[in-house]
């Protein structure tokens, strides 16, 4: 409106000047000049008006909104680049644009980031773009996250504090892509870095570093042709992670090893199946509890390729001591299976193994090795590992993964354990990393987060975008084709969410490491799958974190009330407060109408509970529309400390 108002002023004002000649009209002036040459008196007014018209028109034509954008850009540059990067070859601004809005108050660049680095020059004009992901883990035990970066082909890895400060480097002969894990292997409440590298390009070694970048130990490995990302997980509940890794050699049986935190061998297994091909980070082991005992077992995928028509993946499962898990002696599927993940989908205490096949199928194996779901997605390719999490708050986990077809559309799919599609959401492109599942809007229900070279998406299980998302990142992915490798964490311990991702600028031959602040509470209990393969140790195992929270007993029922001529329904909600040492600042009752968003209908303090019980009526409900209720308990900082199951009435 303002624009049109300006336009009107710009045109009318000079015209009025032009028209306000002594003879009343410049047209009269022209006429008179043409007829008898008179009109000298009006001439100055006419030309004055004409000049004014041109001036006003030029002012109006100046792009006012563009000016505004430039001003914002300058502001963003100042804000985002206040600190110089640790290392930098060519300083160019990295543009951060939200597709949703350029005035996004919810999402901002985390102070101290991004870091931009030049490509590693491999010679002959080739360059290597760096890391696919940033590994986020609390290395120094202060509660805040550190960021580990291993750019491929470099001779060192980098450790950053959350504020972008370079902490330490750790030195490797030759950095391999995606072979870094972090976890507490020696129970010192600090996380160590475990990776692999080739010495002299031929001898494969396992390296373990502490948070200061000091080498704790290394170990020569054999077979040594192929290496996979090590997995760090506490298999025997001794509160320290074991190191699990697989190495192989062409056409031989691979070796699975489990080491303790001092490098001692716990078990060493030669697989029963041979493996003749691999994908560095797509055939790593995963851990799970397949027999409902106290310890976790290891699932090992092994690829075998004969020709285009004959390829298979064997899955073998072993105990910590190397004994085969019953039922997993000869489990195989006639296709390549990507990183399997594990989780108890049916609540029987035994984990299932979930994997995507190279072509068209999503598979679920029961804990005893039976294939219990073989869901086909015709003409789709499922080249990633899935994520597991309870996206709809029904207390049962769903499976989320991305599918695509060559030259065709890409989508994110969520299915329930029976294979029923719950959600299909179009995305611009696929990614080889798993989607993430985390509560991004603080409603207590985990959302789906996904990144590709174009956007970072975040949406709920109905497919509705979370405020501020998608974020356009224009990663220009070339070398980091697996990126942007999102991870969700609270690295600065401010109780709010941070997102890390990598960004490749192939045109400038540089890559960037980015951290975004999302103005939404970070509740560990609702971060169900916060990074690729679930955690920094790449266990690939889903454990419902809500179980670690206080479980609130919620009762909800739909009641009908009739007067003489009016029939209405209302919800009767009742829950019991928490009896625990966890301090609760408030309870929040949320409601989801049909497939809509969860909205808070009431927030109360514990003092408002009577005999630790709370009852309310939700007036009124629409007939034939399902309503889902859940109650969350939050501490003073807004973190979720207790949650109920979602109850639909």
């Amino acid at each position, binding site marked *: 409106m303002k624009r049109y108002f300006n336009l009107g002023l710009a045109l009318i004002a000079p015209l009025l000047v032009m028209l306000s000649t002594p003879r009343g009209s410049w047209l009269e002036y022209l006429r008179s000049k043409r007829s008898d040459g008179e009109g000298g008196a009006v001439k100055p007014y006419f030309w004055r008006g004409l000049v004014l018209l041109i001036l006003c028109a030029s002012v109006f034509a100046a792009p006012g909104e563009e000016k505004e954008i430039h001003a914002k850009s300058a502001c963003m540059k100042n804000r985002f680049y206040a600190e110089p990067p640790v290392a930098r070859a060519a300083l160019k601004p990295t543009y951060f644009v939200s597709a949703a809005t350029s005035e996004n108050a919810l999402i901002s660049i985390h102070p101290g980031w991004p870091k931009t680095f030049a490509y590693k020059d491999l010679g002959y004009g080739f360059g290597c773009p760096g890391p696919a992901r940033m590994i986020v883990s609390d290395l120094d035990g202060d509660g805040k996250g550190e960021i580990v970066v291993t750019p491929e082909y470099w001779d060192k890895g980098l450790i950053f504090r959350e504020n972008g400060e370079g902490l330490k480097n750790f030195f490797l002969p030759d950095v391999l892509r995606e072979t870094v894990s972090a976890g507490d292997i020696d129970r010192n409440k600090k996380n160590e870095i475990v990776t692999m590298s080739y010495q002299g390009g031929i001898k494969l070694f396992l390296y373990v570093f502490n948070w200061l970048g000091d080498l704790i130990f290394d170990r020569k490995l054999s077979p040594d042709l192929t290496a996979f990302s090590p997995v760090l997980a506490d298999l025997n509940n001794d509160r320290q992670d074991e190191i699990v890794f697989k190495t192989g050699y062409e056409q031989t049986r691979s070796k699975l090893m489990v080491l303790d935190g001092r490098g001692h061998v716990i078990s060493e297994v030669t697989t029963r199946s041979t493996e003749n091909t691999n994908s560095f980070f797509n055939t790593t082991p995963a851990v799970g509890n397949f027999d409902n005992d106290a310890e976790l077992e290891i699932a090992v995928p092994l690829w075998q390729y004969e020709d285009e028509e004959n390829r298979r993946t064997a899955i073998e499962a072993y105990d910590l001591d190397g004994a085969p898990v019953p039922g997993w002696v000869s489990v195989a599927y006639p296709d390549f299976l990507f990183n399997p993940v594990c989780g108890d989908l049916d609540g029987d205490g035994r984990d299932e193994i979930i994997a995507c096949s190279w072509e068209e199928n999503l598979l679920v194996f029961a804990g005893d090795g039976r294939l219990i779901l073989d869901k086909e997605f015709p003409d789709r390719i499922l080249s990633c590992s899935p994520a597991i999490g309870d996206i709809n708050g029904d207390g049962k986990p769903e499976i989320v993964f991305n599918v695509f077809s060559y030259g065709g559309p890409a989508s994110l799919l969520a299915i329930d354990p029976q294979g029923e599609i719950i959600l299909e959401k179009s995305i611009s492109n696929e990614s080889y990393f798993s989607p993430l599942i985390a509560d991004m809007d603080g409603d207590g229900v985990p959302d789906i987060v996904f990144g590709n070279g174009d956007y970072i998406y975040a949406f709920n299980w109905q497919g509705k975008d979370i405020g501020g998302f998608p974020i356009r990142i224009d990663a220009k992915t070339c070398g980091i084709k697996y990126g942007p490798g999102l991870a969700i964490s609270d690295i600065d311990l401010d109780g709010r969410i941070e997102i890390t991702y990598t960004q490749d600028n192939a045109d400038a031959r540089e890559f960037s490491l980015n951290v975004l602040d999302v103005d939404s509470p970070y509740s560990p209990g609702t971060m169900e799958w916060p990074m690729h393969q679930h955690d920094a140790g790449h266990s690939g195992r889903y454990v419902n974190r809500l179980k670690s929270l206080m479980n609130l007993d919620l009762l909800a029922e739909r*009641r009908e*009330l*009739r*007067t*003489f*001529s*009016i*029939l*209405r329904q*209302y919800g009767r909600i009742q829950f019991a407060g928490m009896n625990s040492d966890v301090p609760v600042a408030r309870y929040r009752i949320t409601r989801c109408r049909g497939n809509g968003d969860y909205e808070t209908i009431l927030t109360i303090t514990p003092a408002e509970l009577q005999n630790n019980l709370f009852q309310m*009526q939700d*007036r*009124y409900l629409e007939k034939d529309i399902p309503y889902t209720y859940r109650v969350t308990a939050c501490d003073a900082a807004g973190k979720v400390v207790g949650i109920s199951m979602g109850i639909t009435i």
Partner: protein
Amino acid sequence: MKQTKKIGLKSMIIGVFLLACLGVASPAAAIPAHKFMATAGINAFRAASGDYRQLYGQTALMPEFKLTCMVYGNFSVWGGFGLISRQGLIEELDEQARINQTFLNFGVGYARKLTGKLRLRGELGLAYISFKEEALEVTQKGSGLGWKIGAGLDYFVGKRLFVTLAVAYSQAGDETEAGKVKLGGAQVGAGVGLGF
């Protein structure tokens, strides 16, 4: 749900009793032939709908006005107008409910003298019953056309003045979101009339 007001039966009974006493005490006279009769009375109305009775009470007071015109011999045409306004409490939600009803009736009747002062009337006609109910944050309006049948006993206490006792039953229905609703009911009442 329960009714908020106790039924005004006591006052109604007293009123009827007073009218009866007035009639008995008055000197008897032969029933004169009047062309028109206007009657005003008060009725105890018992709704046919159980939901109505549960919320607004078993009976409700209904003032009613009626005009009768003798058209041929003992045959007459008549029209009546009645009102009901009730409040109820929805205990479950501790919310008030309110209903207003309007009764419009007209029909034909037959009157027969029983004695010099007593006359019996029978009536049959159409009933148009409308209502407006406000409850549960909703206002529901409706109406229905049905029938009404009634009988009355008039006792002339003067040449023009008479007291009357009447019973009637009306039935009409409407369809709302809550389903079919019964709009009519039984009524019994007393009143005074004037012939002219």
